């Protein structure tokens, strides 16, 4: 027999106190771990959001440049403004603004400053304002994506250097492309020469790494040649090995040269498109340095100077190399001239939210994808919601509890776990292509009614994907309605159907809506199945209905993230923000609906 009185005394023993202490300690530890876990999760979220928001900021504005356009030009039909070569007029305008830009290559750079879409806007402007025809009027042209990025500082900013000595410019300064010399009484250019030399050393290091790779190639082929039995193959391999050795030697020689140049004090160094760019701005003109020594610059005239007078000149350095940025030195100079003229304006990027997709980054917008998303979600909702709710009602209220309903239930749960791309494959085969079958010699096609890339196809696929979520959420909501309500309804002589639709369903509605909207939010972010059914295509037009070709926001993000243009980086981030906004909106709607329909019982 256990002596319970003796056991009671144990509650006051020191062992019990120690146990209590250790229990409290472990509780504190658990609390710390939980806080740590939440903190990590919050940190991850903040990092994600801030990186997206910071990148997206770049796409919120766009730059325009105002230039005088000669609408009296013969490029425009003076009687009918809609008839005209506005692309040509745009080029004429640029040529007029920069008359010294000559030569095909330079001209092409010049035309690259302005978006190709600007000519259509110019056309529209002329049609809308016929009063300008025959006159010269200012028009604000949309800048190209690269020019826009330059003003946003993506390619580095020009840095101005202090000039201590007196500068003298010698040479033909009024002609573009002429070589001129600029000398300083002080060693004004020594600092940039050092930067240049540091660059040479960095470059030398890179060349050496390249040489090491060539050596690696040589060694591999030499080894294989030694092990090769066949004479012919061995000779080929030895030849390859020789080739690598030659390249290696050339690279090593280049690296040696670079290191020598980088290490020696003073002297004259050539600037190239791989190093920094250095400009002298004086008397309305620009000179680009080609050679640099501590007190002398040899340069090329990019913009003619009105005189060789060197007072008032500025020394400007672009720290990024011409090769590493998408705007050439010429374009930098032109853009700076436009900026100095106050012709450049930055405005909020409404275009992004009101236009469809485009290959030109500066013209591309998300409106098409937003409308596509809207149509797709409409189809998804009107399929998944009624079917899902009806299925849930049947399973909860009417279905007999037998093996078959158990089987159906298990499979609904399994369906929720099926990867979305599988649904995409199903949608492609059944809805879009149609499944061709032959039974007893009769060939027929199942499905194949939905047009490719259309919201109707995408919506159906997403509805299939959302159905299990809707059914599971609806069943849980219906089950949560107290049985006393069903009893009450049946007790006054309501049929089962009346009890369900008059009493159970309204009470379950908040839960059903919340579950459905969460399912829809999931579908909203889905990319893979839509790619399968072809919604990844490049679609410029805004879809007008569920059968038009369309894209959706997540697919738009996926496509843009793959584009090489730098400008699409910010656009991708901003599209992500739009998608997040949509998700937030849907969750807010879910909360409002829940609050609205919520009733106590």
């Amino acid at each position, binding site marked *: 027999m256990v002596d319970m009185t003796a056991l009671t005394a144990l509650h006051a023993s020191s062992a019990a106190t120690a146990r209590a202490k250790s229990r409290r300690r472990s509780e504190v530890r658990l609390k710390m771990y939980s806080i740590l876990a939440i903190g990590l999760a919050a940190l991850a979220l903040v990092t994600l959001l801030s990186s997206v928001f910071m990148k997206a900021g770049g796409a919120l504005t766009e730059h325009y440049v105002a230039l005088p356009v000669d609408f009296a030009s013969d490029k425009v039909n003076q009687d009918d403004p809609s008839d005209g070569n506005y692309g040509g007029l745009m080029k004429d305008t640029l040529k007029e603004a920069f008359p010294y830009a000559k030569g095909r290559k330079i001209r092409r750079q010049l035309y690259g400053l302005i978006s190709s879409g600007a000519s259509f806007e110019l056309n529209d402007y002329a049609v809308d304002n016929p009063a300008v025809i025959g006159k010269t009027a200012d028009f604000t042209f949309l800048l190209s994506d690269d020019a826009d990025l330059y003003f946003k500082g993506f390619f580095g900013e020009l840095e101005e250097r202090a000039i201590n000595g007196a500068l003298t410019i010698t040479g033909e300064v009024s002609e573009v492309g002429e070589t001129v010399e600029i000398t300083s009484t002080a060693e004004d250019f020594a600092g940039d020469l050092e930067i240049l030399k540091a660059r040479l050393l960095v470059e030398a290091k890179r060349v050496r790494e390249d040489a090491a790779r060539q050596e690696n190639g040589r060694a591999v082929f030499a080894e294989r040649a030694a092990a090769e039995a066949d004479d012919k193959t061995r000779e080929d391999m030895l030849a390859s090995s020789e080739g690598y050795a030659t390249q290696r030697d050339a690279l090593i020689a280049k690296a040696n040269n670079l290191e020598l140049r980088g290490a020696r004090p003073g002297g004259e160094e050539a600037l190239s498109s791989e190093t920094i760019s250095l400009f002298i701005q004086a008397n309305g003109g620009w000179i680009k340095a080609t050679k640099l020594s501590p007190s002398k610059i040899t340069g090329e005239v990019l913009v003619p100077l009105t005189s060789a007078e060197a007072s008032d000149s500025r020394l400007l350095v672009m720290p990024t190399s011409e090769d590493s940025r998408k705007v050439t030195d010429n374009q930098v100079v032109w853009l700076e001239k436009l900026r100095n003229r106050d012709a450049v304006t930055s405005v909020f990027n409404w275009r992004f939210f009101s236009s469809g997709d485009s290959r030109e980054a500066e013209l591309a917008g998300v409106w098409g994808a937003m409308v596509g998303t809207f149509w797709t979600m409409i189809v998804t909702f009107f399929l998944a919601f009624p079917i899902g709710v009806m299925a849930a009602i049947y399973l909860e209220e009417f279905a007999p509890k037998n093996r078959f309903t158990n089987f159906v239930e298990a499979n609904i749960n399994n369906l929720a776990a099926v990867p979305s791309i599988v649904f995409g494959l199903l949608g492609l085969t059944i809805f879009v292509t149609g499944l061709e079958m032959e039974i007893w010699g009769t060939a027929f096609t199942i499905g194949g009614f939905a047009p490719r890339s259309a919201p109707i196809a995408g919506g159906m696929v997403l509805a299939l994907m959302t159905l299990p979520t809707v059914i599971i959420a609806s069943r849980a909501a219906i089950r949560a309605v107290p049985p006393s309500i069903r*009893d009450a309804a049946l007790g006054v002589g309501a049929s089962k159907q009346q009890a369900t639709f008059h*009493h159970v369903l309204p009470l379950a509605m908040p839960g059903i809506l919340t579950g459905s909207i969460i399912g829809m939010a999931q579908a909203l972010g889905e990319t893979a199945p839509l790619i399968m059914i072809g919604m990844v295509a490049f679609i410029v037009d805004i879809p007008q209905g569920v059968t038009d070709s369309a894209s959706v926001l997540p697919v738009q993000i996926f496509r843009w993230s793959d584009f090489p243009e730098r400008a699409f980086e910010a656009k991708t981030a901003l599209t992500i923000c739009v998608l997040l906004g949509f998700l937030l909106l849907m969750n807010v709607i879910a909360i409002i609906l829940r609050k609205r329909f919520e*009733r106590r019982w």
Partner: protein
Amino acid sequence: MKDLDAIPGDTKITARNVDVYYGNNHAIKDVTVDIGDKAVTAFIGPSGCGKSTFLRCINRMNDTIDICKITGEIKVEGSDIYDPDVDPVQLRARVGMVFQKPNPFPKSIYDNIAYGPRIHGLASTKAELDEIVEYALSRAALWDEVKDRLTAPGTGLSGGQQQRLCIARAIATAPEVLLMDEPCSALDPIATAKVEELIDELRENYAIVIVTHSMQQAARISQRTAFFHLGNLVEQGKTDDVFMSPQDERTQNYITGRIG
């Protein structure tokens, strides 16, 4: 309150050899009972004795339970309610039910009462419906308390008021029989007293069957009493007879508090 001279009038419900099975569990064993019109019949007995199960057989509420199987014969007004031609929904309009826990719909007081008449087409105009609602609430002695706030939610009333609302809701479908499954078990003594008074008043129009755990309550309000024990109907008769001179030893033990 109890009318000693009240003799059960005509027989309203007759049950013959009723057996109920929940799967393998034999819940009601060969019960035969008569329930009189315009009288209160009390079913008493210890927990799990089958009195509620039997009550729910009378308006076929057990139909909603898949594994429940019923044999025997129950007649209301002489017609078999388990006849395949009988629609349980119509039956439940004639045999109203009040549950153990007050369960008003999460709607307004008015809609709680009006729901039954609406689905059964008892009122063709709004005025008629209003009249029914007023009648039902008055019969349930609730009209004076709620007439100024008919649009307020039924769930906002106190427990006793909610139960009277449920009684009014049952009355509103114009039933012949009222089944009450421990209607006062969730109520305080004051609310219980009110509901008991109400049941006594309602007796003149309806056949009332009440399941109760309180023997005092059965003695106070019923004219006839049936004692159930382990699925058997042990004894039935006039309430006075059952309580004063029980024939069966089990009844004797139960009413004196020796089993229960």
